[in-house]
């Protein structure tokens, strides 16, 4: 099992510092090496800076449409995706910029997609909600709440059908578990014992609606109906999350069948760019408390500094790298051309049949197709 991108932690290596470390701190470091810890910090800082850059770009109109930031939830992106193999599959909803980067899409390709440019990972056609790169096993980016859940089951179905040992990780928001697709997909996954891990990014809210207002049970209760084991993990602790997923992925790879993970996290920004951070449905105090106490980046930083594994200088260096990569992504995006208007009708169909008309708007009237 090797991480998907070069910045990621290398597993299976012994922790760098030896037996003289404080066992409590060590325990909280989950046996990661210094390099691995720095790499995880670098990953999360990249996600943060990248999205801050996107926020800026949105404000000046470089990015349009809906844009859902993952800020605050980066521990989960790194902790759940970095343990995956390159050929494992990820599918998710529309709050997926950092997940896409975690799985191996370059910041450039993601940013260019947000800008709607040809250099984007979906050629500028998909936008923020529809990031795709199947070469790194990232299957989108879906905008209908719950729509990706059956698709994730289908990806896992294909793995099983071919006798492969990959795993599919299917993310969703907490609100998505109230969609019927959730029941149908989990049930089928259980019946066919598909190699899929359903991960709820439980940030407590679906837009302005607290989960407790649309459910009388806790999240953990939602998968038992189908005989799928439920697990809870603290998504703000990237190390705990990483180790947890590392183990779970191996179990699923080994045939343990579908799993359900309640990953507890918090969204530091509004639902999308038009939603204020606090006000209507959650108080300023509530948000502040989370930002202060539960920032996955701060948590890791403090832990590393506390253990003497990170200096202020190193931190600044890592952060500078993250900012540079984000700036570079934005510059790349800005320089990338708009899609060529002549391609408007490309990729509606994979196969243009030699007979008959496929487009009914007059486009291929008299042309080859009609």
């Amino acid at each position, binding site marked *: 099992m090797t991480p998907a991108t070069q910045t990621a932690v290398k597993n299976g290596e012994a922790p760098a510092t030896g037996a003289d470390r404080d066992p409590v701190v060590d325990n909280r470091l989950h046996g990661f090496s210094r390099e691995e810890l720095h790499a995880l910090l670098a990953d999360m800082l990249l996600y943060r800076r990248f999205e801050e850059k996107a926020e800026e770009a949105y404000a000046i109109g470089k990015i*349009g*449409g*809906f844009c859902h930031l993952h800020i605050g939830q980066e521990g989960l992106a790194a902790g759940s995706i970095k343990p995956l193999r390159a050929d494992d599959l990820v599918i998710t909803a529309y709050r997926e910029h950092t997940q896409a980067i975690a799985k191996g899409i370059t910041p450039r390709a993601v940013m260019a997609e947000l800008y*709607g*440019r040809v250099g984007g990972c*979906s050629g*500028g*056609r*998909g*936008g*923020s*909600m*529809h990031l795709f790169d199947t070469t790194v096993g990232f299957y989108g980016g*879906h*905008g*209908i*709440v*719950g*729509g990706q859940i059956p698709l994730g089951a289908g990806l896992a179905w294909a793995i099983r059908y071919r006798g492969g040992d990959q795993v599919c990780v299917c993310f969703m928001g907490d*609100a*998505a578990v*109230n*969609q*019927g697709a959730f029941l149908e997909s989990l049930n089928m996954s259980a019946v066919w014992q598909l190699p899929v891990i359903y991960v709820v990014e439980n940030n407590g809210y*679906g*837009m*302005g*609606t607290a989960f407790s*207002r*649309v*459910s009388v049970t806790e999240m953990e209760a939602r998968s038992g109906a189908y005989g799928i084991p439920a697990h809870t993990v603290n998504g703000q602790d990237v190390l705990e999350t990483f180790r947890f997923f590392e183990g779970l992925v191996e179990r699923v790879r080994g045939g343990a069948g579908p799993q359900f993970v309640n990953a507890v996290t918090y969204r530091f920004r509004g639902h999308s760019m038009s939603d204020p951070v606090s006000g*209507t*449905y959650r108080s300023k105090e509530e948000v502040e408390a989370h930002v202060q106490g539960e920032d996955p980046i701060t948590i890791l930083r403090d832990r590393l500094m506390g253990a003497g594994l990170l200096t202020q200088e190193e931190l600044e260096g890592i952060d500078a790298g993250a900012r540079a990569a984000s700036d570079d992504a934005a510059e790349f995006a800005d320089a990338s051309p*708009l*899609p060529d*208007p002549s391609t*408007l*009708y490309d990729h*509606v169909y994979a196969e243009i049949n030699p007979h008959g008309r*496929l*487009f*009914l*708007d*007059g*486009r291929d009237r008299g042309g080859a197709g009609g």
Partner: protein
Amino acid sequence: MAEITYREALNAAMCQEMDRDDSVFLLGEEVAEYDGAYKVSRGMLARYGDRRVVDSPISELGFAGLCVGAAMAGLRPICEFMTFNFSILALDQVINSAAKMLYMTNGQVPIPMVFRGPTGAALQLSAQHSQACETYYVHAPGVKLVTPATPADAKGLLAAAIRDDDPVAVMEGELLYNVRGEVPDEEYVIPLGVAEVKRTGEDVSIITHGKMVHIALQAARALEREEIEAEVLDLRSLRPLDVDAILATVAKTNRVVYLEEGWPFAGVGAQIVSLIQDEAFDELDAPVLRVTQADVPMPYAKNMEQLAKPGVKAVVEACRKVLYMEVGTS
């Protein structure tokens, strides 16, 4: 008569009807505490309480069906879809329950309810969030469908929809919510099935509905500069359909362009063309042309989206074409 926004007009219609009839309630995602994803229900939770203004889980099929069930028992639900894109998940309850119930029950169980929310594209929301859903609601008999284009129509048609004893889909436009216009302050109801000539003209008729009315009016202004007088007929209601108004404008100009936001194949315009050629075959001096979304899923990139959407230029060209003028010179 005050000038208010389309959003406020919808709000006023709901309040008008909720004030007069306790059986009317509003249910949907974010309609209560959040005042609506697009703030259409602003203040309604405070005014009517959480018995009548209700936040639902994200369960489109379920809450649409729940509203149909409540209507079976005689209530008059307003079921808000955050956008009609998401209502595709609920179509089974719309078509198989709401539309067919009265017939299957031999008239015992009317479904006096409203499905409402924005339809069609806003700006750069990409393929899954930019779909005009009229065809899905108008194909099966049993559901009525209105598409207000102005604040006044929004108030009058939504009020009529709430009072109607059948399921009525009210398709709004996200890009219309901030549009301002004169709206009667007093109780105001526009009967379903009455189209409106939004602009008169002799030379060519642009027939359309919903948000595209504004594109049609812009096109008419552009044509005016070429001394072409276009009539703009806003159907307002797709079912019931004001056939008299359609035939009247055809008889007047003998040349027609149908403009709609959605895709061409089995679009609303296809039906209007079919109707016109059937009932006014000899009145036509040219084939009816249609202007629609390009027959592709909506792309995200701004330039591509503009290209895919039906715009003023395409309407002007179609009008010139049905007038047998040279095209592409304007």
